């Protein structure tokens, strides 16, 4: 998602919607009013199966097995319900979404529901005729991840031999077929020096959009933080490079950037606010306010197998838990920015302080902030640790070990 929320004279860019939809009836009170704003984006994690094993994977550490995945009809029903309730864009992701043999049916259902569909793929197993068929069925946009621009680096990160060559081939098919292409560049200490080359590669491939996505330290990336986190100086240099390229490549390449918030002073308005513009569905049908929400143990999540999507969005406990600002503690509660950043990220507050109601420690006002910055700088200054690759065996091992929470400042 983009941080861009600028207002043009004739266009407003929407990441979170303020318009109630006809599919949703709001009430008088503030809570009902918040619920009345249907989400604009849906991330559908079709499967957790994946040929790659990237150590910063955004999937939860506890991976879902294939036997629990939603059926074809269940996913198609999700797409129809999403269209009816006013969702505008669907991101078909995973794991690797093309591992689903029924991806064609799901894309067709999304298209018929009027959704703008985005396939988020590693592309290493994608065949040209399949891509052509998906386009015919209404696929609107393809996003391909490149683990590095150097093939050796990419192979070490994804643990998949020959990945880069295959990805380049698929990227060229995408542009030849006239589909818009986004290059996703997951950034960390092993490839941060290659940000300029990612930009050049995206232009050469004819991509419309490049995501410079600094790893966000949840789930697998949290486990691998000491193996991944770049230094403060490297991070700043990468931001400068992107800002210069944005100006130079105006009208040629759109560059979106997600920065690592360990070095920030203000927290990110995570998801544009909890339960405000976005929902995520896991391979087994659980509906989450964000893809990391399962890391908050006190939350229970409803399933599309049991309840309608709209009902879950409006009424489920998990979506209402951190909607608005009533749940906040100090320093958020009396903060002038509380309606701007919503106290940052609940999952990061959970991961670092063991209380999801605390201010995100990325905020300089958090009593945990200095310790978090120090942790990041210390880890970045040491040699990188070995990767814990994202696979079911490491998931089992990781779930047994316990991480110590930070201690707040006096």
């Amino acid at each position, binding site marked *: 998602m983009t941080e861009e929320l600028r207002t043009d004279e*004739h266009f407003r*860019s929407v990441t979170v919607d303020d318009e109630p939809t006809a599919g949703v009836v709001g009430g008088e009170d503030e809570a009902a009013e918040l619920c009345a704003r249907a989400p604009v984006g849906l991330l559908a994690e079709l499967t957790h199966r994946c040929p790659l094993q990237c150590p910063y994977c955004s999937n939860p550490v506890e991976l879902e097995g294939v036997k629990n995945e939603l059926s074809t009809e269940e996913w198609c029903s999700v797409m129809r319900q999403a269209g009816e309730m006013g969702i505008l864009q669907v991101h078909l992701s995973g794991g690797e979404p093309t591992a689903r043999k029924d991806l064609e049916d799901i894309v067709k259902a999304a298209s018929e529901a009027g959704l703008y569909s*985005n396939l988020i793929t590693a592309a290493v197993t994608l065949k040209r005729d399949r891509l052509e068929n998906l386009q015919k069925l209404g696929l609107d946009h393809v996003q391909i991840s490149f683990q590095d621009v150097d093939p050796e680096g990419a192979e070490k990160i994804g643990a998949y031999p020959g990945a880069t060559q295959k990805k380049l081939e698929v990227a060229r098919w995408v542009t030849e077929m006239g589909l*818009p292409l986004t290059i996703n560049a997951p950034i960390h200490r092993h490839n941060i020096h290659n940000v300029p080359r990612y930009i050049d590669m995206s232009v050469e491939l004819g991509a419309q*959009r490049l995501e410079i996505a600094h790893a966000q330290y949840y789930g697998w990336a949290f486990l691998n933080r000491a193996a991944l986190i770049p230094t403060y100086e490297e991070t700043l240099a990468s931001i400068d490079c992107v800002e210069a390229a944005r100006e130079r*490549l105006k*009208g*040629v390449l759109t560059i979106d950037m997600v920065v690592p918030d360990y070095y920030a002073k203000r927290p990110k308005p995570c998801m544009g606010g909890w339960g405000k513009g976005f929902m995520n569905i896991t391979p087994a049908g659980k509906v989450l306010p964000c893809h990391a929400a399962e890391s908050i143990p006190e939350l229970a999540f409803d399933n599309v197998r049991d309840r309608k999507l709209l009902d879950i969005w409006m009424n489920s406990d998990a979506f209402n838990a951190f909607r608005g600002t009533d749940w906040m503690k100090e320093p958020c509660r009396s903060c002038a920015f509380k309606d701007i950043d919503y106290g940052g990220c609940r999952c990061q507050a959970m991961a670092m302080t063991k209380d999801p109601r605390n201010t995100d420690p990325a905020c300089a006002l958090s009593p945990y902030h200095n310790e978090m910055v120090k942790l990041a700088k210390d880890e970045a200054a040491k040699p990188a640790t070995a990767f814990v690759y994202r696979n079911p065996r490491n998931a089992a091992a990781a779930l047994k070990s316990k991480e110590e929470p930070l201690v707040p400042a006096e």
Partner: protein
Amino acid sequence: MTGETRSPGRLIVDRETKPHMPPYLKLRHDAGRGRWVLLAPERILTPDQTAVAVLQLCDGKRTVEEIAAKLAEEYSAPADVITADVLDLLQGLADKGYIKG
């Protein structure tokens, strides 16, 4: 306009440009919310009435001049004022990659 740079591949919209929307940009009516939306990769824009009227005329055949003339007639407004507005609007969109010429 001063300080205009022509970076490689950047479309500078002028009166002769025949603008069209690339296939990945979808102008759709959002019935639930009673408005128009422009859907693009990871972007949702809500164009106002003027922008919708302009975009609906961007078919790759009409020039900016012809688009402006048509709108000037429809809205009974001076053509040169409309032309300047249309140029501004389309340049802004071209710089986001949403209009090709």
